[in-house]
């Protein structure tokens, strides 16, 4: 396994940089490409354009057209050739332009990417990363605001993660690339260039292991668990609850969606007795269902209220003029906290 080695970036600049999530991902990709020349990027418009979100900005210029590939317009092709490149010894990083366009690549993901290691009893590794900008709140048209991550969590053989802040973005993408397993990497697109989240990233040492959840705010009255863009919503809700009502909410950033790392959640629920799981995805047969199912089993005697869920509804993503109703926001989270506390 190729561990992320110290990158040129660190040497040329200070180890502490103020970054947005988008810029952190860009630098993380650059660091991974510098560290290992088997890392290649492929996707639609990732070259000169730098991707529609500019996450790959400047990489083709510096690493050339054989390491940053503007591919034909076909997602099955992107994933399917990445699998073949991985068999050959490359570490491909695929960009799916928007999560709504991952579905033409679904078969390659579920039949090859997820299973090749198992099918071959470990003889073939497929260290492919599939980067997927996901989630809503950007006022977009159809297919540009969905949250399909639960589908991949249900498919054994895949690892699924999501970052919520610049430091994680910088390090998790490098760790995902260094991982010998296929990783679906969900990026909170509406936060890419959010200046509020801009923060100092220590580019000299990682923030912890990739497949681990993390308590991002401590609290005692109830626990909120979320990932990706919903982490910010939960943190904002926790601040509001503290300011307005003196309530102390614990917030856990899941970070790893599959495999789930629920240890910190169980531990927290044993203290608070209450859990609210938050996601933009529809609730039915989702990650939040899984969290509820496992928490009710592991913390049966600790729960003082059922696990509640604040999610997108079980509808297709609505026209975006309506998305404020669809997306869990601070108010809906706090409403669920009220319900939990009032149980």
């Amino acid at each position, binding site marked *: 396994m190729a561990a992320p080695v110290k990158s040129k970036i660190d040497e040329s600049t200070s180890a502490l940089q103020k970054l*947005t999530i*988008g*810029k952190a991902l860009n630098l993380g990709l650059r660091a991974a490409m510098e560290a290992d020349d088997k890392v290649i990027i492929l996707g*639609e*418009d990732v*070259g*000169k*354009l*730098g991707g*529609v*979100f*500019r996450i790959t*900005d*400047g990489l083709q*210029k510096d690493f050339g057209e054989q390491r940053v590939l*503007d*591919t*034909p*317009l*076909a997602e*099955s*092709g992107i994933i399917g050739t990445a699998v073949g490149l991985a068999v050959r010894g490359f570490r491909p990083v695929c960009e799916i332009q928007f999560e*709504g*366009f991952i*579905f*033409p690549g679904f078969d390659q993901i579920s039949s090859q990417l997820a299973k090749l290691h198992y099918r071959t009893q470990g003889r073939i590794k497929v260290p492919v990363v599939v980067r997927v900008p996901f989630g809503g709140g*950007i*006022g*977009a*048209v*159809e*297919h*540009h605001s969905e949250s399909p991550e639960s589908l991949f969590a249900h498919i054994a053989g895949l690892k699924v993660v999501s970052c919520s802040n610049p430091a994680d973005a910088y390090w998790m993408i490098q760790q995902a690339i260094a991982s010998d397993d296929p990783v679906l990497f969900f990026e909170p*697109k*509406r*936060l*890419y*260039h*959010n*200046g509020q989240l801009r923060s100092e990233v220590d580019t000299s040492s990682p923030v912890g292991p990739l497949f681990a959840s993390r308590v991002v705010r401590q609290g005692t009255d109830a626990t909120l668990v979320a990932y990706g863009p919903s982490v910010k919503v939960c943190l904002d809700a926790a601040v509001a609850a503290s300011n307005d009502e003196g309530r102390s909410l614990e917030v856990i950033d899941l970070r790893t969606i599959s495999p789930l790392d629920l240890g910190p959640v169980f531990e927290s629920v044993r203290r608070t007795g209450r859990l609210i799981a938050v996601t933009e995805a529809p609730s*039915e047969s989702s990650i939040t269902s899984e969290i509820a199912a496992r928490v009710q089993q592991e913390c049966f005697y600790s729960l003082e209220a059922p696990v509640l869920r604040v999610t997108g*509804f*079980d*509808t*297709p993503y*609505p*026209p*975006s*003029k*309506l998305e404020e*109703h*669809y997306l869990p926001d601070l*108010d*809906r989270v706090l*409403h669920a906290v009220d319900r939990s506390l009032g149980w």
Partner: protein
Amino acid sequence: MSSPEQWTHPEPGEGPAAQAAQPSPEQVIAGLRATTEGGAELTQLLTPEGERIASQFDRYVTDIDGDALRGLYRDMVLVRRADREANAMQRQGQLGIWVPLLGQEAAQVGSGRALAKQDMAFPSYREHGVAFTRGVDLRELIGIFRCTDHGGWDFAKHRFHPYTIVIGNQVLNATGYAMGQKFEGKVGDDDGEATIVYFGDGATSQGDVHEGFVWSAVYDAPLVFFCQNNQWAISEPTERQSRLPLYQRARGYGFPGIRVDGNDVLACLAVTRWALEECRHGNGPVLIEAFTYRMDAHTTTDDPTRYRLSDELEAWKLKDPIERVRAFLARGGHADQSFFDQIQAEADKFAAELREYTFNLPEPPPERVFSNVYAEPSPVLDAQREEYLAYLDGFATAGEH
């Protein structure tokens, strides 16, 4: 303003700045290639200078007299004017996004006007000009871009299917529809039905487009594949999708493929009429590659200065689809300045109405989130709706929202 960070509402100064494109030598060559006439195989009836030239397809436009040509001119001017208006409205924050058709008016109006009433059309997402020819009021289309709905017209009445954004997958839906026309016995004579499906050069790489080719060939579906090769799939030139001119793709499937000058409304009309006639009579499918150029950005979120040279655009301006009709009309004495002025005035009014309508478009009510997920009742969803509306009501009562 055309920066991509639009998508994510950046704060000023956020995100990487657009840089001047640094074209590679290949890109320069590609750009040059794209501005040739489309090769020897290109079907053209009207040159960029507005000269009418003879073609084997002449017999498909014998009815196009001065009147009809003025009609096509009007169509194109109105459509372009509306396109520019919508683009401006997006810049003013009134639309979430706009997908400009600038430069593709002839391809769309020519092919759209070739359709008979009974024919069906499946668009991609840029076919506002085709929508217009199908009698769709562009006001019924603007909600898509104001993000209030996903398309408001009567699909069955206009025989114009909803827009599809997922690249290529409408091609299979159109294939199924055309198979249905065949199965119902609506194919075989002059009154036969046919279907047309629109997609781009980039779309040709998708598996679904191939499967559409396979199926329609195997089932002899009355389907015209209308590929607008506007030279670009966002930032990728057509060379990223194919070694060969795209119309030649049909060769491998055993049905005809033809390249037409997509900036020549008369040629587009003639060739599409021919193709539809083939389909009507049971000789489908047919592939048409309309060789044209996307004169604006991919969408209002795109910044083409990053990936293409302005020279290319300048070269294509000389082939403008509207100007050549104007030149032909004027030179042949089919229209005078007052006609052009009148059309311009009509177009301005058309655009103003679109703007007015857009500004007054009501916000959809929250319950719309839950509507029409299913045709039949869903108790689970009903419960979610009730719960959410009650929650909203709580705010209203508390006066907090």
